[in-house]
């Protein structure tokens, strides 16, 4: 129950506009693509009826719909995990991957892709979204999470935890490099494709795992708004307000791993969305209270990711661009703008 200040009306308006834009983008994602399908046919398919051409149903139900849902969930999850890390580390340039989660996932994938081909000589594990790769990525990021939790249980200083997270990530990347060095070109290529990220490789059965996992992470994050607000004030103030800071951090780390780990496992590492979107949300609502900032971040994340996906397969392109390049090209200007606009990074939230 927030007191209704003069800015109340503006915020209510934003929370009407943001979902509307999101729905618009979701529609655009469904209605556009390399194959042109008439809008009334698409509505028919979504309504459960048979379209004029049976392959259209396959395109909508098996390709575009999972892809749009994947983009939506990935955008929301990555943005929220970025917000969590920025608050916990009180660092505006923190993102979902500062703890080394994507590096851990890469390690898992590299171990499976390269190890598998090394043992069997085949390279059938090349497609992103393959179950074995998903499990490997999950295991890799889970390993990093366990290390971080052990560290944060024993070490109180947040900067030390940040540095250790970066070190874990670097170590994992180094091991991946060694593996790459000993891999054949074909295997290397399939690993490289994974690192470019993809929203199109996630199948409907996989969505049945990915969506609940990300939803759980989002709900967990929404339940931590009080802890996050308190952490914004710094460790001493948070503790003096009765917050168990170690527990609060662990909860945030767990949510981040669940979100970023799952998304990375299914879609590969997707850059810059997690760092840039929370700042976009801050610019829009100008309120540091997570009870408002987090829902705004969730909507903005969905919009940005679905939008990036639409850009990545603009009509006229034969095949879609790697999603990672699109998010980077969209996200980097935002980060640069933040750095230049604020100059004093100390007061960026």
């Amino acid at each position: 129950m927030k007191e209704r200040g003069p800015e109340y009306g503006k915020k209510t308006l934003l929370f009407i506009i943001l979902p509307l834009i999101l729905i618009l983008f979701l529609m655009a994602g469904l209605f556009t693509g390399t194959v042109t399908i008439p809008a009334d046919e698409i509505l028919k398919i979504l309504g459960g009826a048979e379209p004029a051409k049976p392959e259209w149903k396959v395109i909508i139900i098996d390709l575009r719909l999972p892809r749009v849902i994947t983009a939506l969930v990935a955008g929301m999850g990555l943005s929220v995990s970025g917000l969590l890390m920025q608050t916990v580390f009180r660092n505006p340039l923190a993102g979902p991957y500062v703890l080394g989660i994507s590096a851990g996932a890469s390690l898992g994938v590299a171990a499976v892709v390269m190890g598998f081909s090394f043992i069997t000589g085949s390279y059938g594990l090349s497609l992103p979204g393959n179950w074995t790769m998903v499990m490997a990525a999950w295991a890799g990021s889970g390993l990093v999470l366990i290390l971080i939790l052990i560290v944060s249980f024993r070490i109180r200083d947040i900067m030390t935890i940040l540095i250790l997270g970066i070190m874990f990530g670097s170590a994992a990347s180094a091991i991946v490099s060694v593996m790459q060095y000993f891999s054949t070109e074909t295997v290397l290529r399939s690993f490289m494709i994974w690192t470019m990220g993809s929203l199109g490789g996630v199948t409907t059965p996989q969505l049945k795992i990915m969506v609940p996992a990300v939803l759980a992470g989002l709900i967990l994050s929404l339940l931590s708004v009080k802890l996050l607000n308190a952490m914004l004030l710094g460790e001493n103030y948070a503790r003096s307000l009765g917050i168990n800071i170690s527990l609060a951090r662990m909860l945030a780390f767990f949510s981040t791993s669940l979100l970023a780990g799952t998304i990375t496992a299914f879609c590969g590492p997707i850059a810059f969305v997690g760092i840039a979107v929370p700042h976009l949300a801050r610019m829009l609502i100008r309120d540091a209270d997570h009870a408002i900032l987090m829902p705004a971040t969730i909507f903005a994340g969905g919009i940005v990711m679905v939008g990036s996906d639409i850009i990545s397969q603009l009509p006229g392109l034969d095949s879609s661009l790697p999603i990672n390049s699109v998010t980077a090209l969209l996200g980097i200007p935002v980060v640069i703008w933040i750095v230049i606009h604020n100059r004093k990074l100390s007061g960026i939230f």
Partner: protein
Amino acid sequence: MTGHGKILQTEDLAIGYKTGKKVFDNICVSAEKAELIALFGPNGAGKSTLLRNLAGLQTPLSGEILLYGEKLKNYSRSRLSRILGYVSTEFIPVNNLRVKDLVSFGRYPHTGWMGRLGKNDIMKVDNAIDMVSIRHLKDKYIHQISDGERQRTMVARTLAQDTGIIILDEPTAFLDLPNKYEVVHLLHKLARESGKTIIFSTHDLNIAIQEADKIWLMLGEKMISGSPEDLILEGSFGKMFENTSLKFSRTKGEFGITRKFTAKISLMGPKTESRWTRNALERMGFGVVDDPAVQLQVVIHKKESLLEWELTFNKRKKQFWKIYDLCYFLADLGRSQPAGRQSGNEFSTSPRQTSHD
């Protein structure tokens, strides 16, 4: 409440770093209900460390802290947060935070998992905002308000926390003089009117002496506690700066610089004007004496609203309209004296150069 009504008490407390390095020990102090206590001590004495220990943010090396007669270490963090509030000088690097939201965070110990505010919570936040008179600022962002206003906001946050004890680490740091007085006076008022026990550290002894009920003085190896007046009469403040050029005036209740005078001058005139003329002359290195036989003499004439300083030197007289001009002339006079006449003379070559050692 148990014991002798003591809200807070330490027993042979030793504080220091995690590494085991001792900062201060043998601390036996106490705080009563509705008392405003100023913690005073030189830089590095361990004021902040002591306050963090008392606030339960740091573990003592040894000894006990008792809150309401119960050991601090037996309090859970959430229970402690309902009886003790803490304000530090720590900068909050958040721009998009409104004053009223920051104050409402003070209600967290009393709210549920999501931190939602009920009617009672909103009322407490409102009251806290009014108590420190920041109602006109409540919709502003915390980076838009002045340091003094931000300090009041932080105080309001602990008031919303609704605790019997409030600990503040240097609440007057970074503030200008009126704001310093205002903040400490506010603490005084809160202690009186709300019955809270308030402990704050400060470097502003003058303000502490005027407003605090008790002063905890970290003096060398020893912690001294008492009313400011007792400490003044016992000469405790004087001891604090024994080996420095500072001198504590027991009559004025403030510190001054110990000066070495190199010349003598006599001064006559109305009380207030004499006091400030004396201030300037002493800064110039002239010891003001009552002896009318000295060579240098200043007489202040008050003609209606006009002031005139008449200087007698070398059997000559000169009039000045400003103290500054008088000082300027005296400094010139000092420089123009031949060096050989230095010893035994009432004024040496240049009192200005030797006056501040």
